């Protein structure tokens, strides 16, 4: 539940939903029981027509907006987008943020106890796909009394989930916002993901994924995140933010931090390795790699999207080279060929893939305008 505190801070408390009905995963593995951690913002209206699901990206979680406490330093990851009076206005919408299955922020995942052994699943946690996440999210919706979403929204890997929602449960959503996403990864993208995974898998402390209780593959995870981070930024923004600036003003002829960009990346890597689980990182990047609704379909993406009934808003960012505007246009074109309602905005932004998390008047203006037109 959410409530306004007397201070400006909007304090939210995560909830846990337990599911006992077995979930058959796309891989064939079965999860007999599992938990999903979620947060909600705003109120479900009497007709239950105002629910909005927010799907998270690779390293995201359920904490999309507000603060957990007066002490929390940073708000939820999409706090600039979601909240009272914000583009996704919680005065109007009942917003749900959920941590995906396999996550490391409370939902059942590799660090959760395996009921068969009592020890953490580790590498025995089955690989999950975007389809599996959507299935699990649908069960959460039922649990919350939501039969239909006014909108399903996501950026990056979250955008893939939103797209999958429109295919898998076409009657469940009126609108679908697919932001900075792609209909499937390119070989280059899969390659980046595999380098990241190899960094983790070859860490001496990985121990076949059963590293809980030990130090864990922190070095590998740190490297994986450093690599990922480079791909989420643009060359321009790195250039303008760091350039070739040196920490001490001159070359030191060694391998310690010399350039500011090195310092920044190492800091980001360290921070991430402290707070994220390596098994979850492996699993989430695999889910990214596997996603391809058009696989095995002769008609390609257009055929894959044929069942979709939702109205779509697709958004891309000009300097996003990981999920470039061209990839978003593929989604748009498939929707056009199915004569679906779709609008597409290409945001001129210097920050690369990460731009979808930032404030930009045009970007936020489009999302706000789109959300305002949604009839409840």
């Amino acid at each position, binding site marked *: 539940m959410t409530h306004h505190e007397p201070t400006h801070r909007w304090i939210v408390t995560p909830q846990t939903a337990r599911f006992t009905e077995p979930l058959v995963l796309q891989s064939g593995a079965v999860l007999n029981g599992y938990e999903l951690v979620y947060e909600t913002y705003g109120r479900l209206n009497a007709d239950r027509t105002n629910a909005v699901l927010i799907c998270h990206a690779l390293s995201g979680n359920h904490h999309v907006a507000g603060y957990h406490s007066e002490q929390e330093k940073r708000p939820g990851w999409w706090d600039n987008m979601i909240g009272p009076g914000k583009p996704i206005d919680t005065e109007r919408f009942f917003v749900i943020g959920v941590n995906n299955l396999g996550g490391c922020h409370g939902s059942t995942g590799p660090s959760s106890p395996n009921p068969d052994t009592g020890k953490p699943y580790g590498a025995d946690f089955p690989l999950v796909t975007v389809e599996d996440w959507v299935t699990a999210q649908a069960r959460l919706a039922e649990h919350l009394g939501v039969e239909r979403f006014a909108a399903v929204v996501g950026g990056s890997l979250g955008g893939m989930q939103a797209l999958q929602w429109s295919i898998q449960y076409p009657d469940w959503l009126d609108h679908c916002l697919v932001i900075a996403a792609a209909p499937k990864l390119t070989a280059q993208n899969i390659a980046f993901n595999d380098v990241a995974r190899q960094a983790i898998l070859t860490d001496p402390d990985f121990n076949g994924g059963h590293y809980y209780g030990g130090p864990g593959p922190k070095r590998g995870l740190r490297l994986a995140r450093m690599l990922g981070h480079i791909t989420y930024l643009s060359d321009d923004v790195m250039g303008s933010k760091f350039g070739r600036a040196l920490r001490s003003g001159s070359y030191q002829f060694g391998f310690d931090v010399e350039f500011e960009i090195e310092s920044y990346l190492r800091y980001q890597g360290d921070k991430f390795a402290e707070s994220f689980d390596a098994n979850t990182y492996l699993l989430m990047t695999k889910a990214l790699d596997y996603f391809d609704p058009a696989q095995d379909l002769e008609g390609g993406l257009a055929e894959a999207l044929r069942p979709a009934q939702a109205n779509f808003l697709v958004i891309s960012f000009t300097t996003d080279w990981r999920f470039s505007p061209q990839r978003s246009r593929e989604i748009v*074109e498939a929707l056009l060929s199915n004569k679906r309602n*779709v*609008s*597409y*905005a290409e945001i001129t932004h210097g920050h690369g893939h990460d731009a979808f998390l930032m404030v930009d008047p045009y970007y936020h203006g*489009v999302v706000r*305008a*789109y959300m*305002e*037109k949604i009839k409840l």
Partner: protein
Amino acid sequence: MTGNGMLRPDYALIGQWVKPGSRVLDLGCGDGELLRELMDSRQVTGYGVEIDDASILACVKKGVNVIQGDLEQGLSGFENDSFDYVILSRTLQTMRHTEGILKEMLRVGRQGIVTFPNFGYWKNRVQVWQGRMPRSADMPYQWYDTPNIHLCTVRDFEDLCAQHDLNILERVVLTHGRPVTLLPNLLGSLAVFRFEHRR
């Protein structure tokens, strides 16, 4: 623009031409006013294509489907024969690839509708005769900041249609929003054409 809440005169004309329930693609759709009007009065479905951020935002505010893109890149995202009408209002004269866009219009649509300021309008001729580039309500730009790079007259456009085997189905030339039948290339300020491929 729409003075005193009236629909732009070329829009009103297009509204009469477009059959109810048809599928429409509006190229360079601006703030989406025409599509909104056609959706409301003629129950059309379709999309606008626009390059300008503020116009995209205005379309989304109106609930009009709009695709952000550059017409100069062609209409590759749209399939053959997927629209009943493809509209290009007051945009032809700003295009670099004039012939290219006309071809693309009739690739993705059965009929094209084009509106453009008539350079042959007598007031424009007078200004040129006076040694100046013309400015008017339909061409409200200085020569150095105009988006218009391929201005033409009614007669020029008809020649181009003939060259490309385009069959002109309807032609109305307007001045102050009223049709001009006498000497249209001299007395008309805004031309509106509906055309298709000669079959």
